[in-house]
């Protein structure tokens, strides 16, 4: 009991110190965070709600990574991507469980947007590709909204 209490205190201390450090990030991470915030504000004015999910991470040029997202059938979704000032091209792809691409934006340079209304409630994967970055790594941010 005493030991678990001590571990709990340590965990709280670790989180207390680590969380603000993570939140601050560096200049490029803050850039992306600010851009996402501006996108949220702009879309909010157009009747779009708060994002269901946001993700900020660094990627090198020509690298990509995916993350899962569960989308509800019949609900319109908007998925937007932003990236830091060194990034000149960011691609977004939404793929279903069978790995078929159901929505793609590879043409919007550094502000890709996907619009999609799923026919069924299931898990999809959002694939982010850092197509061009002048100084690696480039930070990107992706937000998933319900329309």
């Amino acid at each position: 009991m005493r030991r678990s209490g001590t571990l709990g205190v340590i965990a709280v201390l670790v989180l207390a110190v680590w969380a603000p450090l993570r939140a601050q990030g560096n200049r490029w991470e803050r850039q992306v965070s600010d851009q996402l915030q501006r996108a949220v504000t702009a879309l909010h004015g157009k009747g779009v709600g708060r994002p269901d999910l946001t993700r900020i991470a660094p990627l090198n040029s020509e690298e990509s990574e995916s993350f899962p997202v569960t989308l509800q059938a019949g609900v319109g979704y908007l998925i937007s991507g932003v990236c830091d000032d060194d990034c000149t091209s960011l691609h977004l792809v939404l793929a279903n469980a069978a790995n078929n691409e159901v929505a793609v934006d590879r043409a919007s340079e550094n502000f890709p947007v996907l619009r999609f209304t799923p026919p069924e409630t299931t898990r999809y994967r959002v694939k982010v590709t850092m197509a061009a970055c002048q100084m690696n790594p480039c930070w990107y941010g992706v937000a998933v909204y319900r329309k």
Partner: protein
Amino acid sequence: MARGVRVWVAVAIAACGIVAVAYLPPRGGVTAPELRFAARVPQPTPARLRAQDVAERWRATQAAIRLLESAHPLVRPFSAGGSNGAGPTVIVDGPDSTASLLHPMLVAELDTVWRQLGLGETKVAVVVVFEAPRFMYRGSAPPEERSGNASYLLPDSADRTTCGVLIPAGYWSINLLRVRRVERVAQFREWLKGNLGPCAFYAAYGNPGKPVRSWLARRNFDLALYPVWDNPGRHRLWALGQDPAMQRWWWDWVYNQSLTAVACLARRPDACRTAVLEGVEGAFDDSGPRVVTLGQWWWKSQRLVAAERYLSDVVREVGHDRFQRFWSSTQPVDTALAAMLKMPVGEWTVGWERRFAPELPLGAAAPPSASFLALLLAAAAVGSVALAARRRQVR
């Protein structure tokens, strides 16, 4: 045998003797190595070489573990002193009493070096781990005192934003502890700068593009070991011996270099190109080693002479922006390098070597003394024949 013939045979044998004395043992322009740098030691046995190799690997693994432990993002904020994000994070690995003494001095000096390199807040954070001197033995394991060469933990797909430098305990840290201040500041800062190695390039230019990363990884980052792009001073190749004006090569060192390195010293553009571009073949994957360690005698055998400062000199020549485009390029390395240099790689490298090394004479070349002796002998022979022919002329 007639008396005249006997004289000629004796003269011929004497001439052969003179030539043998002049030419044996073989010279061919190579003088016996002068041991300026180290005492002569017997050739190590295969068992000793094997033991040295195992010990070297063991130390490299230890360095990798230390770096992975210390430079991990979760550990860094707790083990390092306050960093404002515009400089390297400094960790002193040692007892608190030692760390509290060394840490402030190292932070101050590294911040100065950071500014000298023109760095501020960087996309790739650099974590510098100093090993404080320890005096203990761990059973039969090789002692952890290493050669004084730093090891590097480079960013990869698991952690794209951290580059770690492990600087083993050595002369400078012992001296800092002894005198409790930095002596010979300029020299100390040059040493610190040199130890930042490839991490300084990562900090200044971010992670390289895949082709450049794969190329450098295959050659153990030998071209990016010495980040001195801020230093315009000319350097001298120390293998030239004590007096550069005499241009006497340390031949032991020359013969240890790769064939391409030697041919490049002889101003052959094709060899220079090959020496620089070695390692460009192969896939551009992320399978290269994340930890870069340098063997104790890495400088004794190089693919390109003075390779450690090659990319620093390129930066100084082409400027930040052009080098940035090359470093991040996704084009093949030879194309990107030639585009950045605006000339063929081999030609640029020949010009670069000309700045600090005289041309190395290669191929068969008779020494002047031997040539003079040969001419003298030939003249004597021709003269004797002419004299003999005149005496035997029938009137």
